[in-house]
């Protein structure tokens, strides 16, 4: 005589064993925690990209500012330049732009007249380091 027969219940009235309930609870908890985590992650991404969008505006602005200057301006001296990247009054990263003399083999007529500027805005948003990079060629003026 097995336990079920001893208890006098048929299989349809057996209910759940403690182990089944524990396993089901653990699975349900994992599923809900996973779901909640994806919400948190999504929210984090949105906050992160908010600062990245601002960084892109700053990088584009730097390129436009350089475009209005003569290549003899201090901002165009060869090498690296840096300024803090401030978002909503808080310095959250660095804006650097590197000026290099460059020759484009495809356009020999422009030999010695080009400068390549790489603007990099590196920022720490939501604990993750991101960077936005723009590269542009300027003709010596």
């Amino acid at each position, binding site marked *: 005589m097995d336990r079920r027969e001893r208890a006098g219940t048929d299989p349809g009235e057996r209910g759940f064993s403690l182990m089944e309930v524990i396993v089901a609870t653990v699975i349900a908890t994992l599923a809900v925690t996973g779901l909640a985590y994806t919400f948190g992650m999504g929210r984090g991404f949105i906050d992160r990209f908010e600062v990245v*969008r601002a960084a892109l*505006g700053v990088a584009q602005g730097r390129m*436009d500012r350089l475009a209005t200057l003569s290549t003899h301006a201090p901002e165009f001296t060869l090498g690296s330049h840096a300024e803090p990247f401030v978002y909503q009054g808080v310095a959250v990263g660095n804006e650097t732009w590197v000026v290099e003399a460059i020759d484009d083999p495809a356009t020999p007529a422009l030999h010695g007249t080009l400068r390549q500027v790489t603007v990099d805005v590196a920022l720490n948003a939501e604990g993750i380091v991101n960077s936005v990079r723009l590269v542009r060629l300027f003709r010596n003026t």
Partner: protein
Amino acid sequence: MLPRSERGLTLTEVTIVGTLALIVMSAIVGFYMNSQAVWIDASTKSITQREATAVLELLSQRVHESERASVTQIGGDSLVCRLDLYAPGSVTPSRSFWWSPTDSLVYAQDVAGGGTAFTVAGSVVEKFQFVPCVSCESLVELKALQLRSAQGHRVEVSSQFALYNR
């Protein structure tokens, strides 16, 4: 004595089951409401961010096409401005962007093309701040464009735009 299948439930059993069901339902409804709130919050914030980027793109495109620009503060408040853009050779503004005090939105108008004014973003604009210049020679500096989402989040961007059509 009734057989087990016809015995029904005691009041205690019903009370316990009801209480447990209430607890479970409260948890599910709470989770759903919270999820919904987080979703709406993040969604409106994301829309506001996209609007800020779209305004930057529009300003960039319009300023690049212009020969010169002028920036005036609205109502003596340095936080909100009016930007007038001039096509090459034109003495009157060909395009304008301004902050409206009636609804706190930023409007744009293609004056030369006879277009009507339209809002550049649906979100409330708290700052539309440029570096003032009577006749900006080569560069228009947007110090701050701050939008507020429907849920109250603030999104701020800044940039500079060159007048390429000089």
